[in-house]
């Protein structure tokens, strides 16, 4: 935790206090956080920060910061990661991954290199494959069911130093 605090502090030395005894209410804005080297290349960095932030705007207090890294670490259990993964991919935060969310995800992943029909096709296929209850969008149960069978999820997805 000490090191994390060091990292947190060095991002904005004039704002973040070294001494947390008075429980100050300090939040770092999103811009600073997504420039961290671990997150910089990630296409979902804004979503990650947003889903851990308390106010939903993307500013992280130290508690949120610790929260984020503890979920992203190797030690966090699979279910917890699945929960947060769902939050990350749910762009409009309606607790469902609908088609628009899927399209946004795909665009971020491929940096908009696919044509519109290809995008539609992929999104349709995803919903077809994973939607169990037939409502046209992915609820958390669908997502978890699908993710739990993926062989690469734990290994690629959330391992961090």
């Amino acid at each position, binding site marked *: 935790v*000490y090191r994390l605090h060091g990292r947190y502090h060095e991002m904005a030395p004039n704002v973040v206090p070294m001494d*947390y005894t008075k*429980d100050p209410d300090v939040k770092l804005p999103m811009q600073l956080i997504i420039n961290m080297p671990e997150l910089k*290349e990630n296409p979902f960095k804004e979503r990650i920060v947003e889903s851990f932030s308390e106010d939903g705007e993307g500013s992280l207090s130290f508690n*949120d910061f610790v929260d984020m890294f503890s979920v992203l670490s190797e030690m966090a259990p699979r279910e917890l990661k699945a929960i947060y993964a769902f939050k990350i991919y749910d762009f409009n935060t309606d607790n469902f991954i609908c088609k628009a969310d*899927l399209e946004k995800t795909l665009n971020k992943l491929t940096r908009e290199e696919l044509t519109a029909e290809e995008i539609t*096709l*992929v999104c349709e296929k995803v919903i077809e494959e994973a*939607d169990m209850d037939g409502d046209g969008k992915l609820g958390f149960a669908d997502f978890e069911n699908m993710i739990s069978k993926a062989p690469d999820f734990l290994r690629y997805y959330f*391992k961090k130093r």
Partner: protein
Amino acid sequence: DGSDDNKEGSAVENEEAAKGTGQSWRKKATPRTRRTHDRERHGDEEDEDDEYGTRRTGHRRHRSRRRGRAAGNEASDSDMEPEKARKNQANQKSKEDNDEDEDEKGGKSGKGKNEKKGDKKPDKKGKKEKANKKKKDKKKSGSGSDSESEEEPITEEELAKLKEEVEEKKKLIATLRNKPWKMKKKLSVLKEAQLFVEKFEGALGKGKGKKFYAYKVMMTKKWMKFQRDFENFKTACIPWEMKIKEIESHFGSSVASYFIFLRWMYGINMILFGLTFGLVMVPEALMGKPYGSLPRKTVPRAEEATAMNFATLWDFSGFAQYSVLFYGYYNNQRTIGWLKFRMPLSYFLVGVGSIGYSFMIVTRTMAKNANDDGGGDDTSFNFSWKMFTSWDYLIGNPETADNKFASITTSFKEAIVEEQESRKEENIHLTRFLRVLANFLALCTLAGSGYLIFFVVRRSQQFALEGLENYGWWERNEVNTVMSLLGMFCPTLFDVISSLENYHPRIALRWQLGRIFALFLGNLYTFIIALMDEINLKARYLLSFTLEEEKIVKYNMTIWEASLYNGTIPENSTAPPIQVDPADVPRGPCWETMVGQEFVRLTVSDMMTTYITILIGDFLRAVFVRFFNYCWCWDLEYGFPSYSEFDISGNVLGLIFNQGMIWMGSFYAPCLPAINVFRLHTSMYLQCWAVMCCNVPQERVFKASRSNNFYMAMLLFILFLSTLPAVYTIVSIPPSFDCGPFSGKTRMFEVISETLEHDFPSWFGKVFGYASNPGLILPFILLMVLSLYYLNATSKSYKEANLELKKKLQSVRLEN
């Protein structure tokens, strides 16, 4: 308020007394009183909207209250307010001090990695609670706390209920990490739960057992902490972990998987090295007859002049040949030294044991990998997985990220095309023809390389017969250089051929891997066969002339001995043995050492080739591209030659074949595992450096997970193939009569029967005799075959059942 205060005060006193003196009473009303009081206080502080803050101040006041009591203050509530406030601050500060201490300690010990803070927070809280509790205890013991208290035992059901609640809270603490709440909420819930557990846990034990119970609880906590620290320590001990993680973040996990494979191989080789070194080389070196005492242990007089030259040593002849490094040095004495160490038995068992160990560990790793993989290909969520799990979160480097984006896009496009299934194969006949042609060409290449090696080995034997001194360096090292060159150029040739085939890239890669595998295998086996030919020739020669040759050699020896007796041939050969310098004694042939030498030379030259290829192929190329780019006509970095990529498949195959050679040769040259350990060690550092410095991330970042088992399967195959020659020689070729631990026996495995006769009690020999009766062995083999068949059948049926269930799920889904 005052009365409540008093009541609470006595309750506090009771509580203290309970914890401090270990009496096993409990006021029935106490828990409830405490809770209501807490709630009251919460009512007081409603203006504090921060839930966390509420808990904290409540908690703090709680403690300061206790302190106040212990100090003996009976001041009224109003008086205590300012004191409380001050005490609050003091308390808070001390708590924070504790925090800082814990953090520092945590930061210094362990690794302070991100993954630890999840651990640390509850741990820290636990420590804090304990520390504060200890402080309280000290203060309490300091003051004279009155332990007068009412004794009211609680009923059984209350006890049971309390226990249940405590268990619940404990479970909550354990699973808190898994809950997706905000950190503040987690912290507050954790605090509450821990407080609850602390309060009631100590009191739940009965009578004298209470102290012991509290002690047990403390020990359990300490033990858990110890286990956690030990786990952290173990992770810190894994060699090269940081290096591999760094590579992973730059190049993706597929390249890192090669290094993980390398590290695993290093582990295996270390164990093999430990076996051969500890059980074969060291005993011989310590307890066997020293150099120069026996003819087989001495450099022959003829070679003595050049024995110490670097060239001879590099070639592993001269002094290197007549040392513990090779088979020929070992004496066939049954036991050596004062420990009665059975050298020949040990040699045999180590040889067989290292092969057995390798088999076991490769199979075990394969089984583990198969389990991890989830039992095979599952394409039911193809697109979903591509979308949600293809991004490699380990990437922290923009170049790699670019490549990863590109590869994701390509993979999507591929999947889309396959899904659409509207791609018509133009000229299906042309494609088929081209593929057949490509395969034919590949086969030709393989046959050509095989023949080339055979031819070269034959030539080298001819050279050896005519004496190596007449030829230059090329002729002497022809075989090794030819094999290495073939290994370098044929894969590129295969690459060119595969462009004819127009396959899906993944399938093309598999074909490529398969062809390179066949190439290396063919080369190795041709080499072995050529060697074997030579050995067989010698063996046949020996078989038909063994006794003759022995007689001849012995006769020569007696004549020569006689020449020392001033020319008279003695009538019988029972003349007193004359002390002769062992270097002068004529020697018999020693084919095992020769084979061992060949393998060692091959390994060394392979090692050299790899290093030189890395230095020239990667490093010089990178330097060239970087510095000559300014003064060159076309852009070197984008066009030809550009920076090289890390060739995963080539390197992995090279590693596997190298290991195959080690397995083959280690029976004849116990020094091989040692050489390999050295080689892997340096290769790890060299390749890590080269990858980070001269390579660029691959264009097609392929998934490492499924290929792992492919590599393991190849390794297993190679292991099987490489143990065949050794087993064949053990079983059917007689060992040389003049060197090695089995000299004098007709077959090497006779050492086992000899040991059984001499060293074990007689009934053991009988039992073994019965057990090795074919009448018993055949049914046993039959039984094993049957069980194999049965297991195979059940696993197939499970897979089918699995598929059926999946189909059912799908249809249910469709219905919905």
